[in-house]
């Protein structure tokens, strides 16, 4: 995770805290390295637990939507330990690399995919102080780093030496490249409202009104709601979730780019999917739904309970958006690749541009009127 190093070193969250623990004079690169290791460990644990919980939740949501139960056996209550059992199974499965596969690419791909997803967590605020590195370019960093997963997917599709995998990889490349534009543009509305790309700053700015001064409840709500719908649609495409799950569409491409993967390598792709879902939901929560702010939470400020509760609020809010992603997946059919392109370029991008224009006028007018 050396990618984390420069960012962690430049940040002010974890490294500042670490600097306070050591006597002055400890070289900065040691602090940075230590911070990177700790951050990696924390994020890895969080993502693993998150992926396990999300797979369980996904199966329960799918089950109950489809008038059935989902997993019920492992662990007792509603099969809560199913994900752990699956994880153990994936870990102990034979590690198969196809004879005709491009071995290097085949092996690097899952690591790159998961690594990119984990790296993006660096700029994600979980609470008022719970952030690895509070970057000024926070959301830009997240978008930039998370789109590296596409490279991994293309490697996987090419390295598998399977035509279906290659199709999945090419679809992923086309889709992600197209949807970066509406995704970035839809984020412009909150960015203009906050005047900052930092997610942490967005969280701090939504703390008024007893913790209810969220962007969707602000005076710009008429921009917030359509921009969130556009953001959410683009985020579904970005995270390869239905109805944009073309890279792995099982009724067309068998399993798409991860057809030939099994065991622990497959589980990396799986974890990446849920990590990316959480990431997009967290960005949505931080920008539109008040980050860690919740009515009444301010009263606890200063107490030991405040930080854990703020983190809980943030994670729960994000998980609600993850749930919505699952809910959408089990409702709608899949779009065809040319329609994905049509939707990206002819619908989402123009609509985003209109909103960007309206938001610029609105925010400028507000600033001009209040004399700020």
């Amino acid at each position, binding site marked *: 995770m050396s990618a984390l190093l420069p960012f962690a070193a430049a940040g002010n969250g974890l490294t500042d805290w670490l600097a306070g623990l050591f006597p002055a004079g400890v070289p900065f690169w040691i602090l940075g390295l230590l911070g990177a290791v700790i951050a990696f460990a924390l994020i890895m644990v969080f993502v693993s637990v998150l992926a396990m919980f999300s797979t369980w939740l996904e199966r329960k949501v799918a*089950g*109950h939507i489809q*008038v059935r139960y989902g997993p019920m056996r492992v662990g007792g209550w509603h099969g809560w330990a199913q994900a752990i059992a699956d994880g153990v199974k994936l870990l102990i499965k034979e590690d198969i690399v196809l004879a005709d596969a491009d071995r290097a690419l085949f092996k690097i791909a899952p690591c790159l995919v998961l690594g990119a997803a984990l790296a993006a967590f660096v700029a994600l605020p979980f609470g008022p102080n719970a952030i690895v590195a509070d970057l000024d370019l926070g959301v830009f960093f997240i978008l930039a780093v998370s789109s590296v997963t596409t490279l991994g997917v293309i490697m996987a599709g090419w390295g598998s030496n399977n035509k279906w995998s290659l199709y999945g990889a090419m679809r992923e490349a086309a889709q992600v490249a197209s949807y970066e534009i509406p995704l970035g543009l839809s984020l412009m509305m909150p960015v203009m409202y906050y005047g900052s790309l930092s997610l942490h700053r967005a969280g701090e700015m939504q703390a008024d009104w007893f913790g209810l001064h969220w962007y969707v409840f602000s005076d710009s709500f008429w921009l917030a709601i359509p921009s969130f719908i556009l953001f959410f649609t683009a985020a579904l495409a970005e995270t390869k979730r239905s109805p944009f799950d073309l890279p792995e569409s099982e009724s067309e491409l068998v399993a798409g780019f991860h057809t030939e993967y099994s065991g622990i390598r497959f589980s990396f792709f799986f974890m990446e999917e849920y990590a990316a879902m959480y990431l997009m939901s967290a960005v949505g929560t931080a920008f539109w739904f008040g980050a860690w702010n919740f009515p009444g939470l301010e009263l606890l400020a200063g107490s030991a309970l405040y930080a854990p509760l703020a983190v809980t609020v943030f994670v729960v809010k994000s998980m609600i958006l993850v749930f919505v992603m699952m*809910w959408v997946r089990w409702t*709608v059919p899949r779009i065809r690749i040319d329609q994905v392109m049509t939707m990206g370029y002819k619908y989402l991008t123009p*609509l985003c541009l209109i909103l960007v224009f309206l938001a610029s006028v609105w925010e400028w007018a507000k600033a001009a009127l209040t004399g700020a």
Partner: protein
Amino acid sequence: MASLQQPAAPANERSYWGNVWQAVKSTAVGLGITFRYLWSKPFTVQYPDEKLPTDDRYRGIHYLEQDLCIYCQACAKACPVDCISMDAKRHGKELEWNFFRVDYQKCMFCELCVYPCPKDCIHMGREYALVAEDRSEFVLELTTWQGLTEAQKVRVAEAEAKKAAKKAAKKAAAAAKEDKEGEEK
């Protein structure tokens, strides 16, 4: 919108904002339906713990009323896949059963074996879970006993005794007749 009457006119006009509106609206309707079902009681049951009752007429694994069976082979002849095989030895009216087997690797549960039975002694039961670790376990024995039962043995012995007595009586009668004839000579 959905109507149970066939819609008369094609509704295929598509404009830019019409497409946007239809996409948002139909997705919202779909989400509404799935959300309602998310909280409804599941339709399925937890199978091995909870089993749905089968109907009276359910065609499951056969059962045989062995005391009624007369070893006429009608069911075996009616079977399209020849999955019924049986063997018994006749002792006068009594049957000494060797086996009555159904091979469930072949059986397709069509119930054609049940109709031709003159004694109405073969039926299809309500058991359905055919699980085994070996193919040979799918060949089920329908007889509840093999060989002769005690009661049958008694009856066979009685019948044989009667037969023997009859034979003896006949012999005696014949002998008596011979004697008589001899005496007459």
